[in-house]
């Protein structure tokens, strides 16, 4: 008999990675427990003000995830708790947990906050990094999930005030301190995140001694509208607005003194972002960042760096490791010495921000003990290049910064990847422990007078600092049909969702309008809320008073307020005309199409197949493998060929996978759940989801005599030469950034520094007599790859830095080649005569992407990589439902990162294929048979074949629209000469109503 398996999963840590893993699994039919040691889920991301490279408001993008996790019917959150022990084995674990008491009865607390208002005791606020006070009864931050208060027993004096004011009777001072419980799960995902390095340990920088030295997280809180200074940048010593801020990089990372020799990966971009945002907060602010190397290696990061430097005027000072900060005790100003070219300069700053790196989370020791987990020498979870989400313990997986410092999108991809692995492991148990979300019966609002509720959002200060929100609220109350108005600090927070539901019920509202950010990100959240309140989700309308108002009219508060009123008036007018729309259920074809059979495509295919779904793997070449066939050792020294052969065998043998070689897609029709693809050969495939894994190509250099001299080769060629064992050379020169970080392809190719290290180290180990020179601009060995940089230097690899303004020069004389470089540190020209000149050529997008993008109707970046739905939180999704991407099709990345993304795409596909039905959108067009004259223009105009002329009764021909095929674009309605077609939710009357609402006032003004 097969071993018992449990269809439930424990996710340890509720940051962005933990939430993503939990949501993917819960959406694929598994019961999920999130164990969070803190009081709220959200992790470090909840503390951030903005995120790079889009400068999205961090709270705005994470808030919908917090809410979605908090209210998912298959996710149970266990907060303020820790792991105690584990028994059993993969597929069947018993986990012992311990909950610390909040001294509050969680089920009773409504999160109203009256207790904290009246609490007389103030302590330091850990969330705001002690920059602001917090009460003895508190929530960590206003958008906390779950929104339940906690008594800090260390501060509480037991005065009883909170108990007296708590209407819900939720206070319980005598609650027993800790409660233990045991849960049963089939697999465990570890996503405890990371701790920020305590920068006061670097005593030479004076953090904690000099008032005006802040850590990066402290500065981030200061930038945040909901932070301790409400977004005002000030000097803690005197409250003055600083004019000059210095950022010191690599504090507690890349630092042998602290034994944290790894790179923390995200701090370069985070500092650039803080410098840019700081400049937006303070007019005329001077910001200087002291870098060792600028590590802007991610998707479109280099462009962000260039914009920060060239457009915002952030001073980027490379080659600098600041040795100490000195304070003038009179002024509390801070003095730094640094290198500018060969000169040492001194400069005084008003504020210094320390870019503190990542440390393993505090709980790492406990986790190692409980699970018997292997950690690396720094205390992060040990993983392998080829199994990036697996730990040393079967059934226990890892994602996010616990397996090494990384930014949010990489954490999210890894999280989905871990979810993909778990879904495959527990595939037979899918659906066994979950419950279906039940919404209340929808109220019939047809024919009822509109009763509209309007919620206006301050969005911290994002809206409130420009638009006069109270004035908009007062105005909204005067609009026809409006019976209820209120304003919220964040309308998207969980407590406001609860409030909206209460208000809908209490005031018998039948339409809801939210004036806040943009429907593109937040409409689904609010639609779900009104659904929970018993209203059809289409009885909701949004006014965009942030992205298209307060953010773009910052200097015109009066006009912005007028515009906000107009937008609210238009939204209210449309709301009054909204109707309940039914959502038909569309069956899902449980099969996936994978386009591209390289490492990423193969990995995704196998994982989806293991989850029990059919897979069509389409590869244009005659064999699978892509680039992987040419890679013989990874940075950690593993030969991927063995794994590749194993993967190829498993794919060939798996009954769920059909491989189509020498094939491409020539036509792709349909929509999520129901795609139909025609291959070049004419074969038709039906499938419910698509993964784009078309990979990238290695740039063909036109520089440095490539193709003209046999001694000039590319990095991949060098890898193959080294694998052939007959390599011999006195001197090898490797030039970095060939074909990347230039005008044509501005972004960094990410992998080249690591591949250079891998090859350079291999040469030095096998041929110690060979001199290896690496000619670079910035060394970008992020994360633990930094160890390899250090190791390469120890082995004697010589690193020479060049300025892109004077790149290395290569000349050929008598069959020899000579390389000249103007070295930046020693400020001298160095001449080398190499036996091999190795060009580290860029990763370029696959030239086929363009055609495929048009077939799929998905966007590309300017450079030609595929563009995902959201750079931060949806790294492997396209905006079009049911289509996903992974690997080099997304952007350049290392093998382990490609595998993570491929597993992530598999997990995302599972969320689609595991459902028997997809609920279709209600926004479709309908024909009024009374008006239809059967002219057939709708048939001609529709690209989806939705309208068809049918004989509805003998001799009577009318157009009918197939709702499953209709996309709701509304083109047919405009083409219809009888005005018989109406696109629901965007009816002509509704748009005309908005125009009238907008322009009626104007008319009156003209007449006056």
């Amino acid at each position, binding site marked *: 008999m097969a071993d018992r398996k449990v269809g439930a999963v424990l996710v340890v840590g509720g940051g962005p990675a933990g939430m993503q893993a939990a949501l993917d699994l819960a959406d694929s039919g598994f019961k999920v427990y999130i164990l969070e040691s803190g009081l709220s889920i959200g992790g470090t991301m909840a503390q951030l003000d903005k995120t790079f490279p*889009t*400068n*999205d408001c961090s709270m705005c993008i994470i808030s919908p995830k917090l809410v979605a996790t908090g209210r998912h019917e298959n996710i149970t959150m266990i907060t303020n708790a820790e792991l105690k022990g584990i028994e059993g084995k993969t597929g069947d674990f018993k986990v012992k947990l311990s909950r610390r008491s909040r001294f509050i009865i969680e089920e009773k607390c409504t999160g109203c906050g009256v207790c904290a208002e009246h609490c007389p005791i103030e302590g330091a606020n850990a969330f705001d990094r002690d920059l602001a006070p917090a009460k003895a009864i508190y929530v960590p931050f206003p958008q906390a999930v779950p929104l339940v208060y906690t008594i800090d027993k260390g501060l509480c004096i037991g005065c009883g005030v909170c108990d007296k004011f708590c209407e819900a009777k939720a206070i319980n001072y005598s609650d027993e301190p800790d409660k233990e419980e045991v849960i049963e799960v089939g697999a465990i995902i570890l996503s405890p995140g990371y701790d920020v390095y305590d920068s006061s340990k670097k005593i030479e920088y004076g953090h904690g001694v000099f008032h005006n030295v802040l850590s990066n997280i402290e500065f981030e809180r200061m930038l945040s509208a909901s932070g301790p200074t409400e977004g005002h940048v000030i000097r803690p010593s005197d409250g003055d607005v600083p004019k000059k801020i210095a950022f010191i990089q690599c504090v507690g990372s890349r630092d042998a003194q602290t034994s944290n020799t790894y790179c923390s990966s995200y701090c370069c971009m985070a500092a650039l972002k803080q410098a840019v945002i700081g400049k*937006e907060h303070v007019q005329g602010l001077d910001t200087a960042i002291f870098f060792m190397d600028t590590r802007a290696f991610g998707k479109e990061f280099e462009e962000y760096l260039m914009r920060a430097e060239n457009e915002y005027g952030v001073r980027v000072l490379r080659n600098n490791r600041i040795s100490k900060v000195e304070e003038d005790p009179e002024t509390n100003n801070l003095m730094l010495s640094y290198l500018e070219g060969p000169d040492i300069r001194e400069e005084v700053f008003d504020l210094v921000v320390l870019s503190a790196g990542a440390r393993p989370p505090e709980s790492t020791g406990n986790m190692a003990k409980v699970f018997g987990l292997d950690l690396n020498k720094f205390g992060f979870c040990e993983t392998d290049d080829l199994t990036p989400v697996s730990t040393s313990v079967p059934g226990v997986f890892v994602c996010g910064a616990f397996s090494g410092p990384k930014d949010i999108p990489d954490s999210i991809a890894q999280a989905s990847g871990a979810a993909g692995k778990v879904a495959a492991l527990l595939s037979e148990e899918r659906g066994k422990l979950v419950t279906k979300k039940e919404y209340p019966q929808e109220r019939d609002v047809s024919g009822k007078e509109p009763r509209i509720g309007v919620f206006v959002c301050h969005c911290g200060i994002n809206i409130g600092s420009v638009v006069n929100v109270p004035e908009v609220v007062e105005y909204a109350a005067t609009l026809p049909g409006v019976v209820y108005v209120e304003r919220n600090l964040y309308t998207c927070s969980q407590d406001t969702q609860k409030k909206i539901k209460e208000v809908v019920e209490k005031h018998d509202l039948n339409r809801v309008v939210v004036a806040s950010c*943009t*429907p*593109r990100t937040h409409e689904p959240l609010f639609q779900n809320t009104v659904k929970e309140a018993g209203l059809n989700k289409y009885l909701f309308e949004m006014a*965009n008073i*942030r*992205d*298209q*108002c307060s*953010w*773009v*009219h*910052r*200097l*015109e508060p009066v*006009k*912005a307020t*007028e*515009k906000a009123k*107009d*937008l609210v008036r*238009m939204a209210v007018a449309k709301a009054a005309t909204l109707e309940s729309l039914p959502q038909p259920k569309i069956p899902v074809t449980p099969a996936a199409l994978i386009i591209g059979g390289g490492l990423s495509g193969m990995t995704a295919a196998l994982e989806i197949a293991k989850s029990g779904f059919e897979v069509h793997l389409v590869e244009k070449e005659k064999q699978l493998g892509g680039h992987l066939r040419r890679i013989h050792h990874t940075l950690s020294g593993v030969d991927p060929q063995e794994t590749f052969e194993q993967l190829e065998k498993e794919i060939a043998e798996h009954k769920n996978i059909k491989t189509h070689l020498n094939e491409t897609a020539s036509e792709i029709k349909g929509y999520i759940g129901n795609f139909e693809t025609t291959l070049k050969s004419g074969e038709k495939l039906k499938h419910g989801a698509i993964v784009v894994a078309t990979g990238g190509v290695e740039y063909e250099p036109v520089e440095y005599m490539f193709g003209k001299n046999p001694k000039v080769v590319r990095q991949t060629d060098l890898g193959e030469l080294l694998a052939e064992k007959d390599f011999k050379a006195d001197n090898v020169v490797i030039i970095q950034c060939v074909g990347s970080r230039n005008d044509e392809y501005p972004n960094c190719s990410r992998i080249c520094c690591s591949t250079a290290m891998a090859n350079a180290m291999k040469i030095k180990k096998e041929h110690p007599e060979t001199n290896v020179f690496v000619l670079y601009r910035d060394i970008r060995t992020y994360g633990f790859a930094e160890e390899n940089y250090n190791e390469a230097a120890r082995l004697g690899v010589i690193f020479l830095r060049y300025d892109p303004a004077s790149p290395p020069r290569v000349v050929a004389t008598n069959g020899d080649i000579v390389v000249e470089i103007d070295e930046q540190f020693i400020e001298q020209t160095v001449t080398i005569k190499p036996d091999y000149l190795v060009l580290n050529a860029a990763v370029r997008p696959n030239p086929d992407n363009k055609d495929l993008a*048009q077939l799929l*109707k998905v*966007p590309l*970046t*300017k450079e030609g990589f595929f*563009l995902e739905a959201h750079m931060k939180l949806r790294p492997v999704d396209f*905006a*079009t439902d049911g289509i996903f991407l992974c690997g080099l099709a997304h952007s350049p990345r290392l093998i382990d990162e490609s595998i993570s993304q491929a597993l992530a795409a598999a997990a995302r596909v599972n969320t689609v294929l595991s459902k028997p039905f997809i609920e279709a959108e209600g*926004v479709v067009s309908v024909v009024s048979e009374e008006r239809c004259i059967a002219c057939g223009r709708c048939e001609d*105009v529709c*690209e989806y074949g939705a309208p068809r002329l049918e004989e509805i009764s003998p001799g009577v021909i009318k157009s009918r629209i197939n709702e499953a095929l209709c*996309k*709701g*674009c*509304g*083109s047919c*309605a*405009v*083409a219809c000469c009888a005005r018989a077609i109406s*696109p629901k939710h*965007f009816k*002509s009357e509704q*748009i*005309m109503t*908005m*125009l*009238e609402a*907008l*322009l*009626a006032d*104007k*008319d009156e003004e*003209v*007449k006056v």
Partner: protein
Amino acid sequence: MSGPVTKDARSTEKTHEPKIVAFCCNWCSYAGADLAGVSRLQYPSNVRVIRVMCSGRVDPAFVLKAFELGADGVIVAGCHPADCHYINGNEKAAMRGDFLSEFLEDAGIEDQRFRMEWIAGSEGQKFADVVKKMVAELERLGPLCEEDV
């Protein structure tokens, strides 16, 4: 009924604030308008966006109605050619746009008052620039009024 005519710009108050209606498709142009916000690009506050699923949804009647109700300018914005989320709704919009331009010209409405634009989700700057340019032109032209007002 006679067509609307433009008042002499000199006879209007200096404080004339042109009102612009922009019909933006959900997938590209509305996203572009949002991106202008995310990038904090500043542009004049005269534009009011009406979101439609596709630029192909914009009925010429909407544009005429906007002018009739007193809009000084109308923008119809969609995805770039070949980028349409609905395959080619934007091309249909473009054809109607050409027709509309001619019609408006016959009606005595200057061609600067009506624009068809392709704005991608990544073109926040373009959205801001289109608005800036139109506002500047409309300020120069002055308000659009019915002859009998």
